[in-house]
């Protein structure tokens, strides 16, 4: 987390906050996709993209950005594949953040 300039405690706090919000954010995106609700998808994916961008979780941010763009354009072709990609990106990121958040 280079953005915090070596401040380990701030990095730990950011990881903890991000993890707390991650589940609800992914749940919201998944619900929006299930409902084919473009507006809701745009809002939910925008929130996750911003938050992931803040901690330089670039792969998650990019995957959320794809869903955000689909929602903004109300073009949901391929949305399930995009959701899968987000799910994989989140699954890859989560253990690293859990480890970071657990550091004393």
């Amino acid at each position: 987390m280079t953005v915090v300039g070596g401040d380990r405690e701030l990095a730990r706090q950011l990881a903890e906050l991000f993890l707390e919000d991650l589940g609800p954010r992914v749940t919201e995106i998944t619900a929006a996709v299930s409902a084919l609700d473009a507006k809701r998808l745009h809002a939910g994916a925008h929130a996750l993209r911003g938050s992931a961008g803040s901690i330089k979780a670039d792969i998650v941010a990019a995957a959320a950005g794809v869903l955000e763009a689909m929602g903004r354009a109300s073009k949901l072709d391929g949305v399930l594949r995009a959701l899968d990609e987000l799910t994989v990106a989140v699954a890859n990121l989560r253990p690293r953040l859990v480890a970071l958040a657990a550091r004393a």
Partner: protein
Amino acid sequence: MATVLIVDDDRVHSHLVAGVLREKGHKVLTAFDAVQGLMQAKKQPPVDAIVLDINMPGGSGEDTLKKIKMNSNTSNIPVIVLSGSIDAKGQERVRVLGANAVLSKPLVPEELLTALDAAL
């Protein structure tokens, strides 16, 4: 050192901005939506600067900026807009509304600190 109000619904980003500002010795207040932000901005003594997200629930950042600049208690407070989704027209609008600087998310700490120094 300044007292800075951060108005941002993304608490991860808000915490990051707060950390950067505290590291430089600034005092930080936070609000997580536009309504809270306006209430905090109107409190006395006034804050020295506001870092404002432009895309929030409870009223857009542009509305919030307009209200800050129209209220005699807050109109002189410098406002730095931070946004992950503002286009050139949006940037122009918030500058016309009175934003001192418009910065993009994700945060680049040096950009924020430079903008804050210039605004104070």
